[in-house]
């Protein structure tokens, strides 16, 4: 097994990251031209691309774990180059997105059985993933910004896919938010580059050597970057587009809000704080505390708003707004444990949230229910989906042994270690309570209340409660979340990997 992998790594050579990005990009372009009617060809292409990407990522993971350096450099203009570099942090995000892309592809094929424009959908779908993977593997801020803007372009058609006026309006709003954010980020990066020269990511940051008079400029740049990235990471004032983008089909909102767009923002903030500024230097600059405050406020604000949403997907959207800010909170607290908590939550939140969205999609697709009030007795009718939903919900609340518990646990420890317990602990507790407040009634309604009639039930229950391709993805992701929680200490678990990253971040 070992030699086979070594042979493979040599064969693919050091520009493996390029193949990973191109694999889904090229398939995406091909799918655009596939005839609408040829389902089989499109499905095979999709699944093939997803599996190939996962395999390549596996090889990459093995290589990086053994300390092999993967770097692809392409000079596009004088002192401006595209750099794809696989380091520990990018591996975490790449693995998550590759894995979840495979699961979401299966789910999407099932979900979009009879809907129009599927070639266009899957084309943009794979472009979007290649943008996310590119963003994760970016070796310097220039490449990061390019893939960041490319992600905006790839996701806009997905949000507008349904074509209804509401979908187009939501897409326009989404574009307005994300493009302005992208532009501000671009301006900040160019400004930083004019001060600090090449912006290659170096673990522990590159800006601490800069003279004192540039510090005020660096603060402004940090603010601009956080606003630019905050739009996608849905920090409070900039989160307006997220609930409205729920109008998109379920696989899109699952992929967008669990893996691609939202995480890109959070991942960006992690990259900026750790690999550009360096967390110690950022603390010296005094920018971490305001970031923490904004994150904390978002957590509480998101959870409270989620309480009042009757629509299931809107409630999950607001819960995403708050959950992503855990990652930002983890970054904002100066201390290895908090960092571990933040980074590991990046993966855990992805697994749990995608399960919830899959389940919500199943309910909508099978029983035609979109509102929490319609979910009475759903457990009996669709036991497996509701079980997955329950696991995901419990994870969100942070009940052991689910993955969510671990990240909150580390965040708490980190806060204790950094001595900021006073305002972080109440936030964690309050948000957990709020999570419980908006998730438990759903579970209670689903399991214990008698089922009332579902007028527009699409798929009758034959052997399984719903279409095979719709059922198994949520179950898989729910079990993954459970495993990530239970076997957190295994060598390849997200927690271990997060600890590996944090060890290198702190000098």
């Amino acid at each position, binding site marked *: 097994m070992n030699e086979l992998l070594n042979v493979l790594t040599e064969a693919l050579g050091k520009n493996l990251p390029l193949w990973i990005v191109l694999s889904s990009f090229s398939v995406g372009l091909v799918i655009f031209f596939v005839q609408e009617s040829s389902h089989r060809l499109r499905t095979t292409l999709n699944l093939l691309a997803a599996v190939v990407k996962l395999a390549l990522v596996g090889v990459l993971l093995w290589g990086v774990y053994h300390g092999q350096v993967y770097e692809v450099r392409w000079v*596009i*203009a004088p002192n401006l180059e595209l750099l794809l570099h696989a380091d520990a942090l990018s591996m975490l995000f790449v693995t998550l997105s590759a894995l979840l892309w495979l699961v979401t592809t299966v789910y999407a094929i099932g979900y979009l059985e009879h809907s129009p424009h599927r070639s266009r959908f899957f084309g943009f779908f794979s472009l979007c993933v290649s943008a996310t993977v590119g963003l994760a593997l970016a070796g310097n801020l220039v490449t990061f910004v390019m893939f960041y803007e490319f992600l905006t372009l790839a996701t806009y058609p997905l949000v507008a896919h349904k*074509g209804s006026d509401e979908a187009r309006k939501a897409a*326009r709003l989404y574009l307005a938010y994300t*493009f*302005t954010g992208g532009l501000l980020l671009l301006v900040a990066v160019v*400004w930083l580059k*004019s001060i600090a020269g090449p912006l290659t990511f170096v673990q522990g940051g590159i800006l601490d050597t800069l003279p004192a008079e540039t510090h005020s400029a660096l603060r402004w740049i940090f603010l601009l970057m956080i606003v630019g990235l905050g739009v996608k990471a849905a920090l409070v004032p900039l989160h307006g587009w997220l609930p409205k983008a729920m109008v998109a089909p379920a696989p899109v909102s699952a992929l967008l809000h669990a893996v691609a767009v939202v995480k890109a923002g959070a991942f960006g903030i992690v990259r900026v704080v750790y690999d550009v500024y360096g967390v110690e230097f950022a603390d010296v600059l005094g920018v971490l505390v305001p970031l923490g405050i904004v994150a904390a406020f978002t957590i509480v604000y998101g959870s409270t708003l989620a309480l009042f949403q009757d629509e299931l997907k809107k409630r999950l959207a607001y819960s995403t707004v708050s959950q992503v800010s855990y990652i930002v909170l983890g970054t904002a607290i100066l201390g290895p444990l908090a960092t571990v908590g933040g980074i590991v939550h990046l993966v855990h939140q992805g697994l749990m949230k995608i399960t919830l969205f899959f389940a919500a999609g199943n309910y909508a697709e099978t029983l035609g229910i979109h509102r929490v009030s319609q979910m009475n007795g759903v457990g009996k009718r669709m036991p497996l989906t509701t079980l997955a939903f329950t696991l995901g919900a419990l994870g969100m609340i942070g009940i052991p042994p689910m993955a969510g518990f671990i990240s909150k646990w580390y965040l708490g420890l980190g806060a204790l270690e950094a001595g900021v317990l006073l305002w972080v602990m109440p936030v964690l507790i309050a948000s957990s309570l709020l999570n419980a407040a908006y998730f438990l009634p759903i579970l209670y309604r689903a399991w214990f209340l008698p089922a009332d009639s579902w007028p527009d039930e699409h798929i009758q229950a034959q052997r399984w409660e719903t279409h095979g391709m719709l059922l198994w993805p949520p179950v898989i992701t729910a079990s993954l979340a459970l495993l990530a929680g239970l076997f957190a200490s295994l060598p390849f678990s997200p927690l271990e990997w997060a600890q590996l990253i944090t060890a290198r971040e702190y000098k």
Partner: protein
Amino acid sequence: MNEAASVVWVISLPLLGALLATVWRQYAATIGWVSSALTAGCAVWLLWVVQRAGVQELALGGWEIGLGISLYADGLAAVMVLMSSLVVLGCSVYARHYFRAQRQHELFWPLWLLLATALNALFLAGDLFNVYVTLELLGISASALTALGAKRAALRAALRYLVVGLLGSMLYLMAITLLYAAYGTLNAVQIAEALQVDPLGWAALLLMLAGLALKMALFPLHFWLPPAHSNAPAPVSAALSALVVKAAFYLVVRLWFEVFAPLTTPLLANALGALGAMAVLWGSWSALRAERLKLLAAYSSVAQLGYLVMFFPLLAVLEGEARQWLFGAMVLFALSHAFAKSALFLAAGILLQYAGHDRIRELSGTTQALPLTTFVIALAGIALVGLPPSGAFLGKWYLLDAAFKTGQWWWVLVLVAGSLLATAYVFRLLGHAFGHLPAVKRPVVAATQEIPALALALLATFGLGLGAMSLWSWLAHTGTGAGL
């Protein structure tokens, strides 16, 4: 055939094609696109020659420079010739199926090839009066092409365009009179060496800038451009927006950095930059409010030209390598706009042909029916807004970088506002592609029409976005003080 012959052939080929297309009018189309293909090949040869053997200065007729006319091909000129011949080739392949009326078809090609001749002759001219004659040839053939449709709106636009062109040329000619009176020669390089900072120099610069600003449709003098570019037939408006306006810009660059180098103070550059900024804001705002697609594209040309002019104040202040990079970025921005705008106009032509109108609000059905054309419009939109994989993105990157380095931060604000407005008007267009109308059956649109538009759009985005590094090495062979 020595190297210098490439300079002559790249101008004579389209002229020869024009003459042949006139006499054998039934083969006009084939002669047309064959000669534009040959010219493109010649342009590549010219670029290769300049790259290898350095600047080519060809004294025509064997007379020494002061007496005879010299053709001057340096890195910048060769790149612009390549740009113009690629766009002309794309539009020629497109135009083979564009004109329905046979008569219009025959009359299009001679004028079109004369336009191509004028462009190449202008880029390679080394003599200021020769530039005047090429400017006139350009103006007359362009306005004749605009009037091709003989519809009232097109005629009025063509007339206004012709009069404006003549006015600009007259101002330019008066400037030549001054320069000739003072220095007794018409050769650009000789005048550049002899030029002193005196009232005559200032008067000549003022006149030339006014004349060329008129031809370039710089902000206060841009009123003639939107009707002309939106009423002309599609391949013509593509050439007008992408090339003809750019030729005047190229002349301003040549004069600003080479001939009038001692006179161009940063203050004057800032004034020009301010005009550019106003052009960006006004152009983008009117593009947003434009009702018709071709009008939107025309207003966006006014805005994009504003961006190009905004490079001047930064180039006036920077030195050495940073200035060379910014100069290359300006040329890259010009190339990217040329390819993107011509692709957009060609796509608009297809939509117009298919739907019979190009009112943006009622286009959703058409965009559904023509996915490839919509994809071309999307790519062109990316390049116009300046999103990553496009040349314009790199252009804007260096503009921002220079603005921060020189501390002139206000250009950043203009750029941000311009980009936001640009996104608004591009995605207002693309929003319709996702409309809910039932998809009409697949229409029959000649592939030879969609392929060139797609090729130009891909060139603007991925071609220049990723492969732009060689451009800087080509520009390294620029002549005397052109920015280096």
